[in-house]
Protein backbone atom coordinates (compact mmCIF):
# COMPACT_ATOMS: atom_id res chain seq x y z
CA UNK A 1 0.00 0.00 0.00
CA UNK A 2 1.59 3.23 -1.22
CA UNK A 3 0.52 6.23 0.77
CA UNK A 4 1.56 9.84 0.60
CA UNK A 5 0.00 12.64 2.63
CA UNK A 6 1.50 16.10 2.47
CA UNK A 7 0.44 19.48 3.77
CA UNK A 8 2.74 22.10 2.34
CA UNK A 9 2.90 25.86 2.62
CA UNK A 10 4.64 26.43 -0.69
CA UNK A 11 3.42 25.70 -4.21
CA UNK A 12 3.65 22.15 -5.55
CA UNK A 13 3.70 20.84 -9.10
CA UNK A 14 0.74 18.50 -9.61
CA UNK A 15 2.28 17.01 -12.76
CA UNK A 16 5.43 15.95 -10.90
CA UNK A 17 3.45 14.55 -7.97
CA UNK A 18 1.04 12.64 -10.17
CA UNK A 19 3.80 11.26 -12.34
CA UNK A 20 5.57 9.86 -9.26
CA UNK A 21 2.30 8.37 -8.02
CA UNK A 22 1.59 6.81 -11.42
CA UNK A 23 5.09 5.33 -11.59
CA UNK A 24 4.71 3.86 -8.12
CA UNK A 25 1.33 2.37 -9.14
CA UNK A 26 2.20 1.22 -12.65
CA UNK A 27 0.58 -2.18 -12.15
CA UNK A 28 -2.73 -0.83 -10.84
CA UNK A 29 -5.40 -0.91 -13.51
CA UNK A 30 -7.04 2.37 -12.53
CA UNK A 31 -5.83 5.73 -11.24
CA UNK A 32 -8.23 8.59 -10.56
CA UNK A 33 -6.98 12.03 -9.66
CA UNK A 34 -8.55 15.29 -8.67
CA UNK A 35 -6.84 18.65 -8.82
CA UNK A 36 -8.39 21.72 -7.19
CA UNK A 37 -7.03 25.07 -8.31
CA UNK A 38 -7.77 28.67 -7.37
CA UNK A 39 -10.56 29.67 -9.72
CA UNK A 40 -10.77 32.83 -11.72
CA UNK A 41 -14.17 34.14 -10.64
CA UNK A 42 -16.38 36.84 -12.08
CA UNK A 43 -15.88 38.91 -8.89
CA UNK A 44 -12.14 38.37 -9.40
CA UNK A 45 -10.70 36.39 -6.53
CA UNK A 46 -7.14 37.59 -6.43
CA UNK A 47 -5.97 35.36 -3.61
CA UNK A 48 -6.95 32.41 -1.51
CA UNK A 49 -5.44 31.86 1.92
CA UNK A 50 -5.65 28.58 3.81
CA UNK A 51 -4.58 27.76 7.33
CA UNK A 52 -4.39 24.43 9.12
CA UNK A 53 -4.05 23.22 12.71
CA UNK A 54 -0.69 21.45 12.45
CA UNK A 55 -0.95 17.95 13.87
CA UNK A 56 -4.74 17.91 13.98
CA UNK A 57 -5.18 18.47 10.24
CA UNK A 58 -2.79 15.65 9.29
CA UNK A 59 -4.38 13.27 11.78
CA UNK A 60 -7.82 13.96 10.35
CA UNK A 61 -6.71 13.35 6.77
CA UNK A 62 -4.94 10.16 7.82
CA UNK A 63 -8.20 8.98 9.39
CA UNK A 64 -10.11 9.66 6.17
CA UNK A 65 -7.46 7.80 4.17
CA UNK A 66 -7.80 4.84 6.55
CA UNK A 67 -11.57 4.86 6.07
CA UNK A 68 -11.12 4.96 2.29
CA UNK A 69 -8.73 2.01 2.47
CA UNK A 70 -11.17 -0.03 4.53
CA UNK A 71 -14.04 0.78 2.17
CA UNK A 72 -12.33 0.25 -1.20
CA UNK A 73 -9.55 -2.13 -2.22
CA UNK A 74 -6.90 0.49 -2.95
CA UNK A 75 -3.29 -0.03 -3.91
CA UNK A 76 -2.25 3.60 -3.48
CA UNK A 77 -3.48 6.93 -2.06
CA UNK A 78 -2.00 10.39 -2.31
CA UNK A 79 -3.32 13.59 -0.70
CA UNK A 80 -1.44 16.85 -1.12
CA UNK A 81 -2.93 20.03 0.31
CA UNK A 82 -1.63 23.57 0.27
CA UNK A 83 -1.76 26.11 3.06
CA UNK A 84 -0.79 29.77 2.91
CA UNK A 85 -1.52 32.30 0.17
CA UNK A 86 -2.30 31.17 -3.39
CA UNK A 87 -3.03 33.10 -6.56
CA UNK A 88 -5.42 32.25 -9.43
CA UNK A 89 -4.44 29.01 -11.20
CA UNK A 90 -2.32 27.75 -8.30
CA UNK A 91 -3.00 24.20 -7.12
CA UNK A 92 -4.81 23.91 -3.78
CA UNK A 93 -5.32 20.18 -3.49
CA UNK A 94 -4.38 17.03 -5.35
CA UNK A 95 -5.89 13.64 -4.52
CA UNK A 96 -5.04 10.45 -6.38
CA UNK A 97 -6.17 6.89 -5.74
CA UNK A 98 -5.08 3.68 -7.42
CA UNK A 99 -7.04 0.41 -7.56
CA UNK A 100 -7.60 -2.64 -9.70
CA UNK A 101 -10.90 -1.40 -11.12
CA UNK A 102 -12.05 2.10 -11.94
CA UNK A 103 -15.11 2.20 -9.67
CA UNK A 104 -12.98 1.92 -6.52
CA UNK A 105 -10.57 4.54 -7.81
CA UNK A 106 -13.34 7.00 -8.73
CA UNK A 107 -15.37 6.57 -5.56
CA UNK A 108 -12.45 6.76 -3.14
CA UNK A 109 -11.10 9.89 -4.81
CA UNK A 110 -14.55 11.48 -4.72
CA UNK A 111 -14.95 10.46 -1.06
CA UNK A 112 -11.61 11.94 -0.03
CA UNK A 113 -12.42 15.21 -1.79
CA UNK A 114 -15.76 15.41 0.04
CA UNK A 115 -13.90 14.86 3.31
CA UNK A 116 -11.36 17.54 2.46
CA UNK A 117 -14.08 20.03 1.50
CA UNK A 118 -16.27 19.61 4.58
CA UNK A 119 -14.40 17.95 7.43
CA UNK A 120 -10.69 18.50 6.95
CA UNK A 121 -9.30 20.98 9.47
CA UNK A 122 -8.58 23.96 7.24
CA UNK A 123 -9.82 27.53 7.19
CA UNK A 124 -10.09 29.38 3.94
CA UNK A 125 -10.08 33.10 3.29
CA UNK A 126 -10.89 34.65 -0.06
CA UNK A 127 -9.63 38.03 -1.16
CA UNK A 128 -11.85 39.72 -3.73
CA UNK A 129 -12.25 43.21 -5.09
CA UNK A 130 -14.58 43.85 -2.11
CA UNK A 131 -12.18 42.77 0.61
CA UNK A 132 -11.57 39.47 2.35
CA UNK A 133 -13.99 36.90 3.74
CA UNK A 134 -13.70 33.52 5.41
CA UNK A 135 -15.51 30.90 3.38
CA UNK A 136 -17.24 27.82 4.68
CA UNK A 137 -18.37 24.72 2.77
CA UNK A 138 -21.44 25.20 0.55
CA UNK A 139 -24.60 23.26 1.36
CA UNK A 140 -23.87 21.13 -1.76
CA UNK A 141 -20.55 20.18 -0.18
CA UNK A 142 -22.25 18.90 2.98
CA UNK A 143 -24.82 17.07 0.84
CA UNK A 144 -22.05 15.46 -1.21
CA UNK A 145 -20.30 14.36 1.94
CA UNK A 146 -23.51 12.82 3.30
CA UNK A 147 -23.53 10.36 0.38
CA UNK A 148 -20.88 8.28 2.12
CA UNK A 149 -22.66 7.78 5.46
Amino acid sequence: MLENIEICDTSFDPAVKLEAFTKANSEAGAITSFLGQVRNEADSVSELYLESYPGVTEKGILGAVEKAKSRWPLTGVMVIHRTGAMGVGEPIVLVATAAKHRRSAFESCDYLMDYLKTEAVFWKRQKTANGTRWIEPRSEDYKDNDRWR
Partner: protein
Amino acid sequence: MIKILYFGRLRENTGRREETLALPEGITSILTLKLWLDSEHYLDGALQDPSVKTMVNQTLVHNDMALSGDEEIGFLPPVGGG
Protein backbone atom coordinates in the same frame (compact mmCIF):
# COMPACT_ATOMS: atom_id res chain seq x y z
CA MET B 1 0.06 27.78 31.72
CA ILE B 2 -2.60 27.31 29.07
CA LYS B 3 -1.88 27.92 25.40
CA ILE B 4 -4.85 29.15 23.40
CA LEU B 5 -4.96 28.90 19.60
CA TYR B 6 -7.39 30.92 17.48
CA PHE B 7 -8.14 29.79 13.94
CA GLY B 8 -9.82 31.27 10.90
CA ARG B 9 -12.07 34.22 11.57
CA LEU B 10 -11.48 33.89 15.34
CA ARG B 11 -7.91 34.92 14.72
CA GLU B 12 -9.18 38.14 13.19
CA ASN B 13 -11.79 38.59 15.94
CA THR B 14 -9.18 38.32 18.68
CA GLY B 15 -6.36 39.95 16.73
CA ARG B 16 -4.04 37.10 17.65
CA ARG B 17 -3.05 33.65 16.47
CA GLU B 18 -2.29 32.38 19.97
CA GLU B 19 -1.75 33.42 23.54
CA THR B 20 -0.25 31.76 26.59
CA LEU B 21 -1.57 32.61 30.03
CA ALA B 22 -2.15 31.29 33.52
CA LEU B 23 -5.67 30.00 34.00
CA PRO B 24 -7.44 32.98 35.63
CA GLU B 25 -8.90 32.43 39.10
CA GLY B 26 -12.38 30.92 39.02
CA ILE B 27 -12.02 29.63 35.46
CA THR B 28 -12.38 25.85 35.69
CA SER B 29 -14.06 24.73 32.46
CA ILE B 30 -14.19 25.47 28.76
CA LEU B 31 -17.49 27.23 29.25
CA THR B 32 -16.18 29.67 31.85
CA LEU B 33 -12.95 30.18 29.89
CA LYS B 34 -14.94 31.09 26.77
CA LEU B 35 -17.04 33.62 28.70
CA TRP B 36 -13.93 35.15 30.26
CA LEU B 37 -12.09 35.38 26.90
CA ASP B 38 -15.16 36.83 25.28
CA SER B 39 -15.30 39.69 27.70
CA GLU B 40 -11.50 40.06 27.81
CA HIS B 41 -11.17 40.45 24.02
CA TYR B 42 -14.56 42.10 23.33
CA LEU B 43 -15.57 39.21 21.09
CA ASP B 44 -19.30 39.90 21.20
CA GLY B 45 -20.09 36.21 21.77
CA ALA B 46 -17.90 34.89 18.94
CA LEU B 47 -16.61 31.98 21.06
CA GLN B 48 -20.15 31.12 22.21
CA ASP B 49 -21.34 30.59 18.65
CA PRO B 50 -22.47 26.94 18.46
CA SER B 51 -20.51 26.51 15.21
CA VAL B 52 -17.25 27.05 17.11
CA LYS B 53 -15.70 23.78 18.26
CA THR B 54 -13.15 23.41 21.03
CA MET B 55 -10.16 21.11 21.23
CA VAL B 56 -8.17 20.42 24.37
CA ASN B 57 -4.80 18.90 23.63
CA GLN B 58 -5.96 18.37 20.04
CA THR B 59 -9.09 16.40 20.95
CA LEU B 60 -12.64 17.71 20.53
CA VAL B 61 -14.32 18.45 23.89
CA HIS B 62 -17.60 19.82 25.20
CA ASN B 63 -18.17 23.01 27.17
CA ASP B 64 -18.22 21.18 30.50
CA MET B 65 -14.67 19.88 30.05
CA ALA B 66 -12.69 20.73 33.23
CA LEU B 67 -9.37 22.54 32.87
CA SER B 68 -6.28 21.96 35.01
CA GLY B 69 -4.33 24.97 33.71
CA ASP B 70 -1.78 23.09 31.65
CA GLU B 71 -3.52 22.55 28.31
CA GLU B 72 -3.35 23.48 24.66
CA ILE B 73 -6.79 24.82 23.81
CA GLY B 74 -7.90 25.40 20.22
CA PHE B 75 -11.00 27.30 19.12
CA LEU B 76 -12.15 26.15 15.69
CA PRO B 77 -14.74 27.89 13.53
CA PRO B 78 -16.36 25.74 10.80
CA VAL B 79 -13.68 23.89 8.85
CA GLY B 80 -13.31 23.12 5.17
CA GLY B 81 -10.44 22.90 2.73
CA GLY B 82 -10.00 21.88 -0.88
